[in-house]
């Protein structure tokens, strides 16, 4: 087929080429050979035609590609099938590209060819088209006919992603269901549609698609041998070709009239037409049944793609390509993650693959990139299935390679009167127990479930549990040895800062809570204070509490009795109260340990005296709450501060903003800061307000910018800080700023789902009245609370702000005229606060 002449001559040549191709196909069909080979030949002739038209159309400015889709892409182009095409451009479609399209498509239309065409720019494939699964299915058969090869390859790279494949499989299964329903889900139709009916050509394609996207070898293991499946397809194609030839159009229903003609063309024997037809239809049903059974097999057994080279099958998560998996240990963690996500296990086949290839692996082979290290930490989040998957990981030898420290305690036997399991199994059981505490339905353990829910990074507890006993490879003191060994693991995982210190703390002190609870007189306030000083913060207390319970319960089934749980709980509560209510009485003094270390590591620009002046008189808790760098920053903020000045810093890490405010105390200060943040729609998550005896205030808030005000406006940060300075110094009124937000505040009042609790206490602290407030978290909540407190003439000296889910938990240390509140003052204040939170005031 040669079409070198543009214009009318070219049109005539194209017509001649198309007619010749069709005549050739008609001849093949008429002799009963219109199956796969004939259709492939026809598709090749049409390819030639399109390539010529592509050349004749003249190259556009942008790279272009003509791509065959669907049946044409598979080279199964029947006589009257639509020619499905994608015309793809490597950039924005402009006049040049439109001219090309006219030059390419108009001659096709003039030929009377039915073209199903899509015109797209490459960038359109950046996002998955979830509203058009049929188009995505057609794209699976994409085949370059003419144009730019690199453009076609880029399309392939953008399209063939695990998420896309998974979506296509899900969509295809749904489409099959819908299509079969139209045929009453039976293939035994008297006048079957050889394209759409169950067991017909679309099912052939569906079975192949499921296999190609999930397990290329799937159909080989199916109920029909591959030869029978191929024969069935060829038979159906031959029948369809005859239908097209006889009807002269895209006819796919094998009706009674066409059954006779088809039987004749295919040469079925029989004296009477009815006999020939019966033989034809008998063959049809046999082939259709082969297809239907293969598709059903594929539907039932195909692994659903759930990640790179990972599939979910009936027996769990498996590697779709074990050879590729064997070469890439970095993909193995994903298999365990996918199994937990899907609530299933990693298949024996996949575990064998890992076991066979794990021996030479180093820890870094499993987590080559930073994202792999993050994925490992995500894997350790406690949820049902974690223990079971880690056990599988251990059994196949991967856990010991991932954590060589853990390998040191594999099958390690330590003889004592308590432990009933080897050290490695005890360790894994601690993780199971922690996992259970986080999801327990036992009424007596709901209190611990609540504590677990308040732990901000529970995966750090799991990591600590995994490493807490690795030092038991030696026979002497193991906690310090475990911590020493854990340092290597933390280095490898690049866990730094507070997270690193927390893990080391939990490992080093993993026996301290049980020691204090069971062996010390916890009714002695000094014992509780000492323990509170050790843990330092509520988060660490929660972590240590759950770690302790999980550890004790893993000793033997009978070790953690309700009696012991009660002792742990009581120590937890007393320590929590000490940390949140009693800490105001313990102030930083000269020559105390934390201060000496702070001074020793100070930067050159900060003299000792300046640091001491800033921190002296603040609660001791301050030194444990903030890392040294943050404290040095606060000291700098306090430098040369004058009564009307407000010094602030604003930073963001992982979407959480931290605002530090240093100023001198004044009425409504805390309330005003909260009000400004609320006026910009900021959601305050955590915070600390601290005051030293000289009236120097250091307030630190962590908040999220849910409305993305700071993210979307480049000058938003300075604007927030400016308004803050204006309000705190008394030059602007926060009430007017908040007016626009009142509507949402009113809405919140009507939908509160947490019953507010307000409680005042004069016993917990020697200097302050403590206000415990639990309420549903809402925009402006802190502003409203603190405003009521200020309106009652109280000074807010210390505040702890925290949120757990939709609950806000705030503890205020307040005084009035320098003293604790009287009973009457407490009643009046709590009554007003209760009314405010319930929306009745």
């Amino acid at each position: 087929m040669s079409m070198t002449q543009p214009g009318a001559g070219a049109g005539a040549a194209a017509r001649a080429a198309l007619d010749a191709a069709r005549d050739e196909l008609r001849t093949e069909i008429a002799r009963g050979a219109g199956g796969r080979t004939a259709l492939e030949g026809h598709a090749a002739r049409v390819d030639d035609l399109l390539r010529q038209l592509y050349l004749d159309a003249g190259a556009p400015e942008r790279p272009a590609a003509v791509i065959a889709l669907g049946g044409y892409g598979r080279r199964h182009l029947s006589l009257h099938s639509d020619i499905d095409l994608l015309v793809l451009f490597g950039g924005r479609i402009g006049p040049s590209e439109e001219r090309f399209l006219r030059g390419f498509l108009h001659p096709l239309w003039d030929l009377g060819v039915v073209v199903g065409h899509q015109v797209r720019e490459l960038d359109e494939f950046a996002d998955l088209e979830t509203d058009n699964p049929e188009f995505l299915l057609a794209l699976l058969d994409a085949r370059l006919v003419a144009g730019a090869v690199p453009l076609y390859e880029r399309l392939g790279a953008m399209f063939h992603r695990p998420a896309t494949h998974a979506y296509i499989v899900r969509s295809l299964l749904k489409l099959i269901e819908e299509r079969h329903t139209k045929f009453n889900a039976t293939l035994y139709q008297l006048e079957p549609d050889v394209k759409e009916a169950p067991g017909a050509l679309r099912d052939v394609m569906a079975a192949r698609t499921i296999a190609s996207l999930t397990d290329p070898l799937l159909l080989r293991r199916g109920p029909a041998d591959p030869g029978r499946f191929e024969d069935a397809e060829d038979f159906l194609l031959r029948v369809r070709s005859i239908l097209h030839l006889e009807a002269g159009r895209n006819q796919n229903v094998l009706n009674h009239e066409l059954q006779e003609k088809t039987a004749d063309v295919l040469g079925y024997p029989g004296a009477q037409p009815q006999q020939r037809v019966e033989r034809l239809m008998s063959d049809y049903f046999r082939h259709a049944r082969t297809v239907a059974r293969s598709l059903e097999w594929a539907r039932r057994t195909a692994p659903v793609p759930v990640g790179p080279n990972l599939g979910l099958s009936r027996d769990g998560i498996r590697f779709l390509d074990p050879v590729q998996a064997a070469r890439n240990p970095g993909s193995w963690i994903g298999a365990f993650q996918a199994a937990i996500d899907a609530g299933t296990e990693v298949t024996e086949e996949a575990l064998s693959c890992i076991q066979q290839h794990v021996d030479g692996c180093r820890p870094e082979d499993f987590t080559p990139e930073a994202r792999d290290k993050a994925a490992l930490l995500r894997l350790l989040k406690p949820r049902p299935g974690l223990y079971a998957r880690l056990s599988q990981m251990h059994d196949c030898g991967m856990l010991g390679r991932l954590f060589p420290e853990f390998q040191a305690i594999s099958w390690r036997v330590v003889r004592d009167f308590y432990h009933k399991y080897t050290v490695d199994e005890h360790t894994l059981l601690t993780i199971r127990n922690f996992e259970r505490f986080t999801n327990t339905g036992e009424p007596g353990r709901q209190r611990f479930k609540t504590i677990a829910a308040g732990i901000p990074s529970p995966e750090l507890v799991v990591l600590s549990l995994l490493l807490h006993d690795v030092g038991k490879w030696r026979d002497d003191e193991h906690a310090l040895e475990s911590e020493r060994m854990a340092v290597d693991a933390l280095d490898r995982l690049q866990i730094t800062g507070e997270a690193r210190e927390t893990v080391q703390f939990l490992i080093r002190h993993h026996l301290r809570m049980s020691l204090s609870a069971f062996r010390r007189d916890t009714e002695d306030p000094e014992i509780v204070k000492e323990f509170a000083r050790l843990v330092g913060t509520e988060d660490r207390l929660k972590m240590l509490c759950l770690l302790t319970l999980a550890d004790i319960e893993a000793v033997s089934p009978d070790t953690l009795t309700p009696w012991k749980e009660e002792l742990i709980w009581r120590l937890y509560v007393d320590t929590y109260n000490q940390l949140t209510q009693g800490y105001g009485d313990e102030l930083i003094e000269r020559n105390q340990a934390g201060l000496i270390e702070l001074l020793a590591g100070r930067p050159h620009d900060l003299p000792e005296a300046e640091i001491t002046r800033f921190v002296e008189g603040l609660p001791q808790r301050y030194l444990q709450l903030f890392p040294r760098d943050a404290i040095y920053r606060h000291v700098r903020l306090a430098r040369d501060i004058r009564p009307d000045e407000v010094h602030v810093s604003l930073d963001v890490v992982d979407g959480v903003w931290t605002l530090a405010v240093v100023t001198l105390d004044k009425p409504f200060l805390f309330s005003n800061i909260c009000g400004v943040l609320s006026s910009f729609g900021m959601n305050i998550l955590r915070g600390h307000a601290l005051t030293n005896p000289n009236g120097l205030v250091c307030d630190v808030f962590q908040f999220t910018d849910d409305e993305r005000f700071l993210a979307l406006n480049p000058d938003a940060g300075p604007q927030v800080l400016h308004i803050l300075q204006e309000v705190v110094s008394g030059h602007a009124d926060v009430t007017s700023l908040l007016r626009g937000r009142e509507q949402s505040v009113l809405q919140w009042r009507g939908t509160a789902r947490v019953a507010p609790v307000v409680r005042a206490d004069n016993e917990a602290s020697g200097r302050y009245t403590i206000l415990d407030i639990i309420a549903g978290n809402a925009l402006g909540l802190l502003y409203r609370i603190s405003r009521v407190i200020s309106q009652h003439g109280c000074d807010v000296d210390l505040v702890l702000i925290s949120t757990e889910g939709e609950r806000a938990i705030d503890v205020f240390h307040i005084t009035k005229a320098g003293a604790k509140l009287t009973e009457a003052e407490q009643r009046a204040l709590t009554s007003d606060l209760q009314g405010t939170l319930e929306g009745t005031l």
Partner: protein
Amino acid sequence: MKLIKSIVRPNKVDDVKDALARLNISGMTVTEVRGHGKQKGHTAIYRGKEYNVSLLPKMEVEIVVPDSIVDEAIKAIVEAARTGEIGDGRVFVFPVLESYRIRTGEKES
């Protein structure tokens, strides 16, 4: 023979065991128990909510000793378990009529 049953603070059990060991009393039964005497428990506040902890965790230590060392044993327990605060516990003494060793069926005098 006497059965001496003492209710002590959990953190005092080791001290009591050590004190009895010094009297060569090594056989004992230790049980986790809960209860209250004059101490009567108290109300713990956690996050603004009250938790009633009226039954306090204690340890029960039981020993059976010859009449000749009953007074010494009681004295050892009391001294080891005492803090001077309410909630230190109690010691009860019961007569033991007969005692049999299960392994041999032998009656002990």
